[in-house]
C-alpha cells in the first residue's frame, strides 16, 4: 500500500534532523509543525524573524495568548526561560551573519542543484517573500519540505525551477511525503523512501535522475 505521509508525519521526519544545541528557524506551514516533535533528550533554540530567540510552544489556553509574543508565522507562542527579544535589523544580522544553524522552509519547487522556489508562482505579482530569501542564503543548513508532486501529480523536484527563485543553490536536504533526498555536488542522492515506496516509484515522480544511496532505507517515523 503506497500511502503518502501526511503533514504531521513530514514534520516528524524533519524534527529528526534537530540536534542538541541548534539554533533553528522554522518557516510557514509544515516547518512550524516540526516544533511539536523535538526529541526529548535535546535542547534547541528557535529563532523568529520578528525578533525572538528561545520562544516556547503554542499556548494551550486562550488565557495564555499574548499579542506581544508571536512567532514569525504570526502564531501565538509562549515564554521560555532564556528567551530574548530584539529588533528586525538585529534579527536579520543573525540570519545573514550565518548564526542560524538550521532553517526549514516550505517549497514550491527545488532544482537538482538545490535552487529553491517558494514565494511566487509567477513574476510580477505581489508575492509573500517575507524572510525566505535571507534565510535561504544565511542559514548554515537548509531543509526544504514539501509534497513530492503538485495536486496534478507533476514533479516539484526539477532540473530547473520554473517559478521565481528564493535563492540559488541553497537547499541541503529535501523532505517530501515520499522521500528524503540530499543535494550533493554530484546531484540528488535518494536516502530514504516512505513506507511502501521503492526508489523506482520515487524516481518516476522526480524529473532529474536520482542517485541511490547505498544505505537507502525506509523512513523511520
Amino acid at each position, binding site marked *: 500500500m503506497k500511502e503518502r505521509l501526511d503533514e504531521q508525519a513530514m514534520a516528524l521526519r524533519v524534527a529528526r534532523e534537530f540536534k542538541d544545541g541548534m539554533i533553528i528557524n522554522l518557516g510557514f506551514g509544515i516547518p512550524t509543525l516540526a516544533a511539536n516533535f523535538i526529541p526529548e533528550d535535546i535542547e534547541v533554540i528557535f529563532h523568529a524573524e520578528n525578533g525572538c530567540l528561545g520562544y516556547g510552544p503554542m499556548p494551550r489556553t486562550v488565557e495564555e495568548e499574548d499579542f506581544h509574543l508571536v512567532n514569525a508565522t504570526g502564531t501565538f507562542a509562549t515564554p521560555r526561560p532564556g528567551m530574548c*527579544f530584539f*529588533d*528586525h535589523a538585529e*534579527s536579520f544580522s543573525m540570519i545573514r551573519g550565518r548564526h542560524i544553524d538550521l532553517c526549514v522552509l516550505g517549497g514550491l519547487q527545488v532544482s537538482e542543484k538545490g535552487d529553491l522556489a517558494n514565494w511566487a508562482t509567477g513574476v510580477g505579482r505581489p508575492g*509573500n517573500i*517575507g524572510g525566505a530569501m535571507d534565510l535561504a*542564503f544565511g542559514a548554515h543548513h537548509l531543509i526544504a519540505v514539501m509534497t513530492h508532486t503538485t495536486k496534478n501529480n507533476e514533479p516539484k523536484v526539477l532540473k530547473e525551477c520554473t517559478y521565481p527563485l528564493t*535563492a540559488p543553490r541553497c537547499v541541503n536536504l529535501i523532505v517530501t511525503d515520499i522521500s528524503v533526498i540530499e543535494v550533493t555536488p554530484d546531484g540528488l542522492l535518494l536516502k530514504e523512501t516512505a513506507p511502501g515506496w521503492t526508489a523506482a516509484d520515487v524516481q518516476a515522480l522526480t524529473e532529474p535522475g536520482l542517485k541511490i544511496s547505498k544505505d537507502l532505507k525506509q523512513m523511520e517515523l
Partner: protein
Amino acid sequence: MINKVVAGFDEAVADIFNGAVIFMGGFGPANGTPSNLLRALAKQGAKNLTLIANTPGYGRSAPGAKAFRKTLPNYDDGGLLIQTGQVKKVICAFPGMNRPGMTAPLHEKWQTGELEVEMVPQGTLAERIRAAKAGIGAFFIPTGAGTVMEQGKEKRVIDGREHILEYPLKADFALVRAYRADRYGNLVYQGTSRNFNPVMAGAAKVTIVEVDELVELGSLSPEVIVTPGIYVDRIAVRENGKKGA
C-alpha cells in the same frame, strides 16, 4: 524644557502631507502596529502616500464578515489606508494572503492598477531602513542575488559570493508603536511588538510614536532603554493604556 508629548493622535499626524513617504512599524496581525496614529491619518485624509512596512495589513473586514484572525479590540493596520485610497505605493516584504475569505486589500487595488507594489526581502527592508537612519550611502548584500531581486542592480562578488547593491529607504514620517516613553522620547517595547519599530524610529525626517504609557523622566532604567530619545520627535499617549490594540 524638553517635552515631546503632543495633545493627541490628531495633532501628532496633522502635518503629514499629500505625497508623503511613511514608515509603519508592526509585524502582521501581531501587536506593535500604531493603530491610533493610522486611524488619525485616515481621518486627516492625506493622499498619494507611499507606505513602507513589513506587512501593510488586511484593513477592516466588511460589516458582518467573520474576522479570519484574532486581533486586539480597536486594532487597525496599514490596510485601512489602502482601503481609503490614500496609498499610491506600497514597499513591503509580505503583501499578505490572497485567497477567498482572506484577501489583503493590497491585492485588489494592485489588480485594478490603483496601487503600485514593490517587493523587498524582509532583511533587506530592515537594513535599507537602518542604513537611512545610520547615514550609510549604500551597501552590498547577498540576499536576492541570483533572483529577480537583482534586476537593474549593481553586482559584485565579495568573498566568492555574489552581492547586490542596495540603497537606503528614506521617509518623511515614521509611525512607531512602543510600550512606555518618557518626555525625552526614550522608549521601551513589549515582546515581539518591538520588530520594525526601533529600526524605523529615527530613520525618517519626523518620528511619531504611539505609546501605552508615559512615565516620569528617570523611571526607565538607562540600561534597558531600547530607542534613545534622540530618534523621537513626537509622542502621543493612548487614553486607555494597555487595553486594546
